[in-house]
């Protein structure tokens, strides 16, 4: 089970702050593809993924129990 969180535009698009995915393991690339398929307009090419509060690369592997966050382009400051 993988926990995912949504923020800002993605929280509004999905209508939720977080959910869980019933997967043992998947790559960041697969997670982004899952999100794009599940939520049309997700914009996977502009979204970063953080795994356990650190930015991950697309080929990184997410394991069951990991906590992931979709990070749309940041705009702090």
């Amino acid at each position: 089970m993988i926990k995912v969180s949504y923020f800002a535009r993605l929280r509004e698009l999905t209508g939720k702050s977080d959910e869980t995915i019933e997967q043992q393991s998947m790559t960041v690339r697969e997670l982004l593809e899952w999100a794009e398929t599940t939520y049309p307009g997700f914009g996977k090419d502009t979204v970063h993924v953080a795994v356990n509060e650190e930015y991950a690369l697309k080929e990184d592997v997410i394991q069951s129990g990991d906590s992931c966050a979709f990070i749309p382009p940041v705009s702090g400051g």
Partner: protein
Amino acid sequence: MKPFEIVETPIEPGKYTEYVLHAGAGAVTVFTGHVREWTHGIRTLYLAYEAYVPMAEKKLAQIGAEMEGQWPGVKVAIAHRIGEMHISDIAVIIAVSSPHRKAAYEANEYAIERIKEIVPIWKKEVWEDGEEWLGGQKKYPEKGIEQK
């Protein structure tokens, strides 16, 4: 206060300045970023900021560590406010002390640039006739977001 924090209440600059001040500091720079009413001719009513709080605080601390590495002797405190903010409210404060002024200026500017690159905070502008989450439609860099 924590030296690197996300807060939901108005930012009081004094406590961050006091935190970085010490006997070896010959210079303190304090940057405050405020909510601006007009952007490219469009009037902002208010801003709404959101953050992935635990990661945002970690990334602010990482920026502080990068500054200490690049400008030895600096002491840093950074706070970013989230929630609804109105015109002239302080959204972010960066306080930097240093033995000499040049490092305090340079490190302070470095901090705001890095905040805009790596800290998971988002700003929504609300106008009279609409609203939008800001953030460039940047392509995902293959080497990852941390790459400079």
